[in-house]
């Protein structure tokens, strides 16, 4: 990494991604002290308790679901696929930004990824955990979830590999495993730093186990960097394949509104859009409360806002193409579906999603908005809501008025649906609060490389 980064040094001074007074040791001390020295704050306890209450609600909703069955969800004909798929797609999409930051931006030599990749990867893991819950709970018999995997069994049955839903099982499990490995590999040198700096036995033991005896040997670093770069190269097509396959869950069906070739790339763009919005939503309060403005600078927020803007435009293009292909297909069912989306009972939600995803992010054309944390935070929340509405509209409006008007119906989700959804937010934030307390939320060794690089750059500029 360090090697590839340095090769293409341009004579032009690069923008500062870290304030100049930082040194290798100050970076190490600052990041590790959040975990090792900082007292448990009231805000942290309050946040964790609030999230934990959400997690408790999830537990209740799931317990009752396991007791009574999926009948407690508001699913019925014609809407047989509801919150479970909406939330699954929403969560997994959010996860994608983490992989994008850690893998794609690494391959593109974007140094600004360094201070945000660790918690973005953690966000990926936690979002995938939330996403994975929904298909499992929707199985009807979650205790038989292992039927999804091909294993030799006495029943003599196997999965049906021509179905995108089976592809999903492989895509999401692979994605979860690779994200976990990538995250953990990135953590190993930092675990060694924490092991060496921890003052109490429990910390030394805990971080010592996780560091696996890492000692920073040059030979180890050499192989480590190879492994890290290869993993980034592998994670890049993986992340695109995962959401494409999620898109195919819809596109391979023959339901008007789902049966569209644009779905896989449109879903990938939507995932990155929602994910970067989530990274903004998380990083703006984090940098404020933990005083990390030196590391996560306005430049970082500005760059992320640009990605939100770009992917937002791709998503807006997707909305236009949905309308165009419905009209151009000449298929009356497709045309009715589109008209129903825009003018039917769910029209306010459709127009709200257009407002949230296609119109409001246009603020980011203005530098003033991209560099103002308050505006960024507000817009990122709006985008998160907009992307949830998008999945709601895609799933529900395509189903609720099907080919037979006598079976038309409305779907709002039952209270259990809502409890499960809000509960996964609780799960996500509980994990996140525990993460920022117990593990370094910024990669220490990559920040050291960044400091070292900018020190050398400064040196070069002094003596041309």
């Amino acid at each position: 990494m360090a090697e590839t980064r340095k090769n293409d040094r341009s004579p032009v001074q690069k923008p500062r991604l870290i304030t100049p007074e930082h040194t290798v040791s100050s970076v190490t001390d600052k990041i590790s002290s959040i975990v090792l020295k900082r007292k448990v704050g009231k805000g942290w306890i309050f946040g964790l308790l609030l999230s934990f209450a959400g997690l408790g609600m999830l537990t209740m909703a799931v317990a009752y679901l396991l007791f009574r069955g999926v009948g407690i969800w508001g699913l019925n004909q014609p809407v047989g696929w509801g919150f479970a798929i909406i939330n699954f797609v929403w969560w997994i999409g959010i996860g994608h930004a983490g992989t994008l930051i850690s893998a794609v931006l690494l391959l593109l030599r974007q140094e600004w990824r360094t201070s945000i990749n660790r918690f973005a990867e953690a966000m990926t893991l936690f979002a995938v955990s939330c996403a994975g819950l929904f298909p499992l709970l929707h199985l009807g018999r979650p205790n038989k979830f292992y039927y999804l995997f091909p294993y030799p069994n006495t029943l003599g049955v196997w999965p049906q590999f021509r179905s995108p839903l089976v592809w999903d099982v492989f895509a999401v499990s692979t994605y979860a495993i690779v994200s976990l490995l990538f995250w953990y590999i990135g953590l190993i040198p930092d675990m060694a730093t924490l092991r060496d700096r921890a003052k109490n036995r429990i910390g030394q033991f805990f971080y010592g186990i996780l560091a696996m005896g890492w000692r920073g040997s040059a030979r180890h670093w050499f192989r480590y960097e190879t492994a890290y770069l290869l993993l980034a190269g592998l994670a890049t097509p993986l992340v695109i394949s995962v959401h494409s396959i999620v898109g195919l869950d819809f596109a391979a069906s023959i339901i008007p509104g789902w049966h569209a070739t644009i779905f896989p790339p449109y879903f990938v763009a939507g995932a990155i859009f929602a994910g970067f919005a989530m990274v903004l939503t998380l990083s703006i309060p984090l940098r404020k409360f933990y005083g990390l403005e030196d590391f996560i600078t306005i430049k970082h927020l500005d760059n992320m806002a640009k990605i939100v803007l770009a992917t937002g435009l791709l998503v807006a293009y997707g909305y236009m193409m949905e309308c165009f292909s419905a009209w151009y297909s000449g298929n009356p069912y497709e045309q009715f579906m589109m008209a129903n989306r825009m003018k039917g009972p769910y029209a306010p939600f459709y127009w709200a999603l257009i407002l949230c995803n296609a119109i409001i992010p246009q603020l980011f054309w203005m530098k003033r908005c991209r560099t103002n944390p308050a505006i960024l935070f507000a817009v990122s929340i709006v985008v998160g809501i907009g992307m949830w509405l998008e999945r709601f509209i895609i799933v529900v409006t395509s189903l609720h008025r099907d080919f037979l008007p006598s079976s038309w119906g409305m779907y709002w989700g039952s209270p259990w649906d809502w409890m499960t959804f809000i509960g996964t937010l609780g799960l996500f934030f509980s994990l996140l609060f525990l993460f920022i307390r117990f593990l370094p939320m910024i990669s220490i060794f990559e920040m050291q490389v960044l400091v070292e690089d900018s020190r050398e750059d400064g040196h070069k500029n002094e003596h041309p």
Partner: protein
Amino acid sequence: MSTPNTTAGEDLWGLVAEFETPEALVAAAKKTRETGFQRYDAYSPFPIEGLHHAMDFYRNRLPMIVLFGGILGGLAGFFLQYYVSVISYPLNIGGKPLNSWPAFIPVTFELTILGAALSAVFGMLALNGLPMPYHPLFNVERFRLASRDRFYLCIEARDQQFEAGRTRTFLESLKPFGVYEVER
């Protein structure tokens, strides 16, 4: 493995020198190699560009392991689906051929990535000999800083040329911050 010519006895694992900058470490590693030492290693809190060049260390089997892991994962993925859909449990799905290979590509692809990623991670750990909870270097009190802001070069006692007094003089000639003994 101990060599007979150590003066400090059987307990000495090696001698480690501490440096304050990455440049000093790279220069020291180069000098050590030129002097003819074989069993030595450099330690740093972060990867240093060019350090492995200075140590003349290029051998890296990891890319090959990852390639084979990926190929193995892909083949296993495809033939799993072939076996299931054609041999063990043939089902007529919409009149598609039993070996409907285009539909098998996504799972094949995912398992290729999985095989390659697992071999990258576990291959790297295995080649590096990790996990290794105990290492003699951890006996050196100052080696804690190897994960913060100091840089170390250790010449191990099992090196043919190692001789405690002379090796210490050599390390001191590299102008380190300090030279410490590493107990076994």
